[in-house]
């Protein structure tokens, strides 16, 4: 693949250079002398298939942050993967995001073989915008993208094409329910919860948040040239730890799981809530509290909410739903990376007896998140500051 004539610096190879290894990937390290040089090779699909438990949405968020820091973005494609990605971008979430970066330059090694028509960026972007979610898992991964800075911000699945308004919650729930059609869930009649519906409510609320808080900066301007929001849906393998007390020394097992992730490139939870910028001097514990207050209205009444219409999504309900689904949640925003997991076999701290003394006793999760680095502890670790936010939900399918 010939590099662009005036490119410099070390290329970022996808996906391996965006994986969370022992040393965390830092968005600022991806840029070299103000340039973000991304390379997509023909073995991309094989590499992705070989990774277990990859958070593609976190890779997207890291890439968007690097693109914001860079003065110039160049994407170098090998012809094979370019041909596939340009033809069907929605089934390659990370690559689809690359294609909607407004000012990125795309070069490919088939550029001179007279077959440039199949690498038409405008057509690829139209394909992303007009994509209608494939129902019942016809494909393993897909993305619905709102490319706000390209003027293609209202995909059919999430916005009403006639009025251009965000679809109401019931419609978004219908989209998610259709998506899950045909899948069975663990039975949990005890709580009377409809599992797919509980999941659909969470997704609808999270996406509504990106519409309200993920498009504009604090001065109500578009957030920048790479203002992107999206919903990623993937089928994947989830590693379940061995059951407590098993003596056969098994290393656990893999179960089929569904990933639903929502991301945006906005100002993030902290600034959206406080209407203030997030900087290196901001107290990390304050940022942690604000995150919780964003998610739970009554979590910490000491913090004044600067948003005139409070729309905490209800961490309590989300965690309760996830608990009943045996799933997990990861939130990456600002300098925080938080999670809760109710996957079978995982240690489950921060639980409480059902707060109502007049109802039967249940063990419920406390409405707090845990830190991904420290594990099992509700104290934050400082990570690199990323733009926007991403929420990743994993639910085992049975």
């Amino acid at each position: 693949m010939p590099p662009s004539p005036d490119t410099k610096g070390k290329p970022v190879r996808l996906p391996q250079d965006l994986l969370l290894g022992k040393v965390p990937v830092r968005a600022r390290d991806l840029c070299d002398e103000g340039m973000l040089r991304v390379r997509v090779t023909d073995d991309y699909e094989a590499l992705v298939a070989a990774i277990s438990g990859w958070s593609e949405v976190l890779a997207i968020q890291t890439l968007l942050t690097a693109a914001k820091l860079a003065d110039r973005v160049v994407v170098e494609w090998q012809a094979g993967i370019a041909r596939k990605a340009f033809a069907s971008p929605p089934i390659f979430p990370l690559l689809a995001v690359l294609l909607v970066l407004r000012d990125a330059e795309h070069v490919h090694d088939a550029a001179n073989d007279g077959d440039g028509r199949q690498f038409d960026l405008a057509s690829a972007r139209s394909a992303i915008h007009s994509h209608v979610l494939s129902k019942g898992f016809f494909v393993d991964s897909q993305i619905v993208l709102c490319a706000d800075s390209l003027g293609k911000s209202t995909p059919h699945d999430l916005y009403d094409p006639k009025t251009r308004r965000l679809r109401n919650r019931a419609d978004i729930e219908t989209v998610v329910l259709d998506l899950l059609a045909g899948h069975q869930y663990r039975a949990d009649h005890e709580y009377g919860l409809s599992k797919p519906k509980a999941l659909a409510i969470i997704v609808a609320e999270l996406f509504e948040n990106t519409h309200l808080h993920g498009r504009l900066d604090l001065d109500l301007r578009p957030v920048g040239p790479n203002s992107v929001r999206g919903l990623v849906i993937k089928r994947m393998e989830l590693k379940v730890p061995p059951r407590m007390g098993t003596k056969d020394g098994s290393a656990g097992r893999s179960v089929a799981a569904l990933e639903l992730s929502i991301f945006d490139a906005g100002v993030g939870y902290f600034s959206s809530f406080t209407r203030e910028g997030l900087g290196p001097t901001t107290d990390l514990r304050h940022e942690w509290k604000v995150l919780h207050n964003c998610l739970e209205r009554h979590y910490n009444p000491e913090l004044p909410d600067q948003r005139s219409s409070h729309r905490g999504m209800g961490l309590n309900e989300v965690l309760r739903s996830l608990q009943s689904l045996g799933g997990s949640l990861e939130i990456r925003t600002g300098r925080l990376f938080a999670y809760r997991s109710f996957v079978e076999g995982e240690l489950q701290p921060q639980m409480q007896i059902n707060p109502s003394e007049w109802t039967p006793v249940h063990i419920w999760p406390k409405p707090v998140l845990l830190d991904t680095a420290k594990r099992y502890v509700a104290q934050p670790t400082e990570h690199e500051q990323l733009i926007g936010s991403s929420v990743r939900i994993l639910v085992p399918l049975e």
Partner: protein
Amino acid sequence: MHGLALFTRFREGSFEGNVCLLVYDLPDLSGAHLSSDFRDLLDQHPNTPRICLLAPFHSVEAIRRIATHSTALQRLDKAVTLDVATLHASDPGKLAVSTTSLHPTLTTGEYRPATLNKEIIEGWMADLFRLHRGLVSAPPGVHFGKGSQRHADRFLRTSNLLLSSKACAVCAYFALAATSGRQPRRLFVDTAPLLSVALMMQRIAAVHGFWEVAPPSDSFSSYGGVDQLPLISKDDLFLISASTSGGLAKKLVEVGAQPASVVTLYLLESTEGSEGAHQVVCDLTYRPGRTFGYSKIENYRPEACPMCRRASFLARLEGDQFLLQKRAVKRLRIVKTTQTEDARKLFEVFSRHGALGVRLRDQQIRQPEIDFDLQRLLKTAPEVKEQFVRVIRRFAPAPLDAVVLVGWSLQAFHSFVKEAGLERQLGGIKAVVAHDLGWMEPVEGGGVLVFVGVLNDHAALRQINAQLRTIVPGGCVGYVSAVTVAESRKHLADLRVFLQFGEHGPETFIFRSAFEVMLPPRPEGFGAWELEAEYLMQLRSDGKLPTEMVERLAWLEATGTSASDLFLNGKSGQLRLARDFAFLDTTQALDSVTQGDVFALVSNLLASARNDGVSLRATSQADSPAALWSQSVYGQTLLCPSVFRLFNDAVLRAAFLRAAHRTELDYSSDLETSQEVADVVVAELQAWLHGKGDALPEFALALATSRLRLVDHHVANLVEVARTCEVPDYIKLMLASRS
């Protein structure tokens, strides 16, 4: 919302608030549904201290389990009570609706039932009726001939309500409560749409164990079918959709029905009496002390009908059916008198300071697009400061214990107090920013001044009011604002009543503004500037962005709020207000009038026109019917094309194109108005050659973004005319983009 929310008001001593009925028909109702609905409900209606759940297809135990086994109750603070409606046998031979409290939980852990006030049930049913426009008024020159052989200019159409299983279920639930609960042999309804209610009654009665089998149901076609009814048994149940005279119920009793078995869903009394109706679920008649209802209907005998005498056309109704015709077009006109006197004064004071901007996009809903730079106005417009200071001096409670700041920082407040010479009243008084109100120490019987800059978020002030009622019990609270924005007189009056009402009646507290202005809320969905930016971004993305628009797009992407550069430039550059403008004195500092001033003024004119010219200071009698200028299946409101002819100033045309609702600019289904607007655009195209036609880019953009819609062949004609005129390519591109 997953549930259907119906509201009515209740009073307990001096306290008045909403009581909301949440109706669910979900088979898999869960705590997550309840929780999400509680959040939305309390966000949108903060003064709702009572919520009642009704899930007619679930047992009461199931609902109780769903609510208490979830985290939904944690959404509710202690002041909000949550009940669940229960249906049970009461007096011998009667059913009744009670409520069982779920929140706050009694210390004993018991669930104690209490009878539900009939007035509250009627209020909810009336809200359902109002929401679906059950009361149909005859258009001018027409009146109705009803099956009861009476003539009237209004009639009740219950079938308008029966559009969802939730609505049918709520009607059925309360109708069942009006019966004895005994198993009927057959169920008769007066019109076919009511069969849906009958089926719901069967289902609810089975779930709650009142009926063992579902009785057969038939429609008997109202008055016309009474004679064809089979022999009536005492175990037959009758359901009447609506009545104004009670005549149908009387007739049914005459042919053998038991009075206790004839249930009328809605009754609106007529001036000639309505004695015949027996078991009435909802009486819609307005009475003193009620917060809902309609005035009595005037029924006339055909021989004494004054409308017939005036040669008004008689439209005969068969049951409740009538024919739909093409939607009538109502032209929203702007004339000199559209601008109210107070609005004129306000814009004379507020214009020319660069203080009226437009928020090009927003995260909040139902907020106006206009942004007031109050700090600038206080500095540059002496009258604003003078009026505001006078209101503060006049209405601040004395003695004063605290000031609550809304839209002011502590620093800005203290510096204003100093500059305005208010140290004697406000100096040294504890000031609290509204967001910190939650942990303000209670001051029993104290005096608090709520100090607002620009009041455009009524819900926020209602929340502050609710908080202060517990922080300053028995105290004296004054609300003052420099500028209060409201979308109608009624909107402002509702806020006033809400803020001022307390234990001593309607003026327990005081609310005053230095200035009040009528402005419409931002339309839902994308506004004019968001659509413009999206359109230009799409052109850029496709590599078709004309060079003339590159700078414009950069400006749109870099701007959040602006008082200038709002409209596309015309042939002669920036659009400016010309002399001899009817709505502003153009003899003074004309050059200082900004595009933001013009847009705000035009927004006010449109709001005023949509309110039929009723000023914010008018009395309640002046209110026009709520639906007068709204879009409905019967009529379409369009901005009258005469607006574009009369106001030929390009800046005004641009402002109307950006401030009108999209639906008001949708001329695509009316040939006549579309032609009128197309003629205006053609004139602009032809004028371009002669150095005029400055509004042409704005018309072209409105067409390109589909804010303005014309009949297809009119658009095609515009494209053709543009081809023959020497207009720039970017205008041709915009005109052609939707053709």
